[in-house]
């Protein structure tokens, strides 16, 4: 079991707050802290599923499958692929928005992926430590209840910023079909002031997909690796919501 008070040297500023939290909710001796509240976990898995659907269908929109046989009226392959893409995109947008709202009412950790405390020296020190840990320079990992600072940076950039970019460009592209009187065009048509030729918006949306592919690879690898190597649970925490500590 982990006793936060017994490890003052490595204790995070967060941890003292968590100790109180843990004391309140689970009693002092419990080894787990409730980190990811239910809405956070639901958003995580819905977004994960949407992103996978979006990547596959998005790729197939850029590079369509071989032609189908028969009459055009008897087939709707591209139509279904595009429908899945648009549907998953709107689901992602809604849950992304819900996740932002939850950051206002949720616990301390629900806000972590939406901003970086870049003005705090301590934050950068911790990022450096995490880089050293991943570069095999430090043998002993630190303990974190929420995201470690490097993971937080990756989440902020790779998820929050990239997905926001994809949602904005995605709706802008959708507005092309929906028409210039649609709410999508009213809200996101300004994208075409930046790139007047929508071919460029397509290209950036495409590059954004690949950026997310890279993020997903690193995200899953880091989560699994941390689960094995670090002193806290990672993967199961996103299912149960509780972070288990071990030592």
């Amino acid at each position, binding site marked *: 079991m982990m006793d936060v008070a017994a490890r003052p040297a490595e204790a995070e500023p967060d941890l003292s707050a968590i100790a109180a939290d843990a004391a309140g909710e689970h009693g002092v001796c419990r080894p787990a802290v409730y980190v990811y509240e239910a809405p956070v976990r639901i958003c995580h898995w819905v977004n994960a599923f949407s992103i996978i659907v979006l990547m596959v269908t998005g790729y197939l929109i850029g590079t369509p499958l071989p032609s189908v046989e028969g009459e055009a009226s008897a*087939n709707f392959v591209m*139509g279904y692929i595009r429908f899945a893409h648009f549907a998953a995109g709107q689901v992602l947008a809604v849950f992304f928005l819900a996740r932002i709202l939850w950051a206002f009412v949720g616990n301390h950790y629900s806000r972590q992926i939406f901003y970086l405390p870049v003005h705090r020296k301590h934050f950068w020190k911790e990022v450096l430590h995490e880089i050293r840990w991943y570069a095999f320079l430090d043998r002993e990992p630190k303990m974190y209840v929420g995201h470690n600072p490097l993971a937080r940076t990756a989440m902020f950039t790779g998820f929050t910023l990239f997905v926001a970019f994809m949602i904005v460009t995605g709706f802008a592209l959708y507005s*092309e079909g929906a028409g210039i009187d649609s709410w999508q065009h009213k809200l996101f048509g300004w994208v075409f002031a930046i790139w*007047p030729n929508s071919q460029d918006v397509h290209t950036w949306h*495409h*590059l954004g*997909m690949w950026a997310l592919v890279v993020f997903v690879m690193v995200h899953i690898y880091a989560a699994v690796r941390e689960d094995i190597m670090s002193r806290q649970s990672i993967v199961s925490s996103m299912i149960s919501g509780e972070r288990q500590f071990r030592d």
Partner: protein
Amino acid sequence: MGAATETFYSVIRRQGITRRSFHKFCSLTATSLGLGPLGASRIANALETKPRVPVIWMHGLECTCCSESFIRSAHPLVKDAVLSMISLDYDGTIMAAAGHQAEAILEETRAKHKGQYILAVEGNPPLNEGGMFCIHGGKPFVEKLKMVAEDAMAIIAWGACASWGCVQAAKPNPTQATPIDKVIANKPIIKVPGCPPIAEVMTGVITFITTFGKLPELDRQGRPKMFYSQRIHDKCYRRSHFDAGQFVEEWDDEAARKGYCLYKMGCKGPTTYNACSTVRWNGGVSFPIQSGHGCIGCSEDGFWDKGSFYDRLTNIKQFGIEKNADQIGMVAAGAVGAAVAAHAAVTAVKRLAGKSEDAHHTS
């Protein structure tokens, strides 16, 4: 210049056109502009009462394809547009006067109709070397353009050149050819892009302005909504093949003969705003996709610089190499994948080494 107070109606009656034909023309124009039931009578009323709008038509750095297209308009006939609806006072290409005479007309129109004439610009001004790459009546075109624009009511930017820059503004753009709206900031500008624009779109815009005395409703990029609010793709007659997933894979394959969608052949219909798939060309005879070739996106910004006309994905040149988004993405994903695998391997080795070390210590 007594002609300036003449109306369109009095001019065509003098040409021997009956009132019945005049109303037929009004109905047809109202229909092609998509106006409501009262549109025809409003057009008739405007053409009967309003003085003809003076137009100065200037040519910058261009190929005159806009004029070539314009003179082929069928509805309305360009003859009606030029000789009756507007008072085309100055157009270097098709006017009878030349030299000092032509310059005098330009000055006269400018002075007499200050703030009332329309300036139609075909082509664009090159700004490099003080504008010396395009000389117009002994002066750099850019100076002349600014001068004439100063007293204009509004400006029509004909074609991709005036709207976006087109081929002379393509990279590396040695003459620094610049679209009109980057040079003139204080006048309403209506962009009618295309290389060239469709003839009926050009005369349609002119008819709208002469009829209602104002510019048509413009979209975010300054193009008239009535002709540029939808993509070629949205109204393409091959759209059903796109939705079905039936594509031409090669120019001479069976799918090409069957008239399948040209998406995979690099058709720019999905990213191009124009009226080709509805109005079509040469009096509604055909348009590029109908004749078996993809759209090249000629009415879009910088269409010369977006890679091949025959690629679906745009090439990106930022890294000194020409690759499309998928090629760049796959390389990035592959590199990161390899890095992840290597990192995992090192982690595993370290962990095993660490364990045996621990085991050694405890034993």
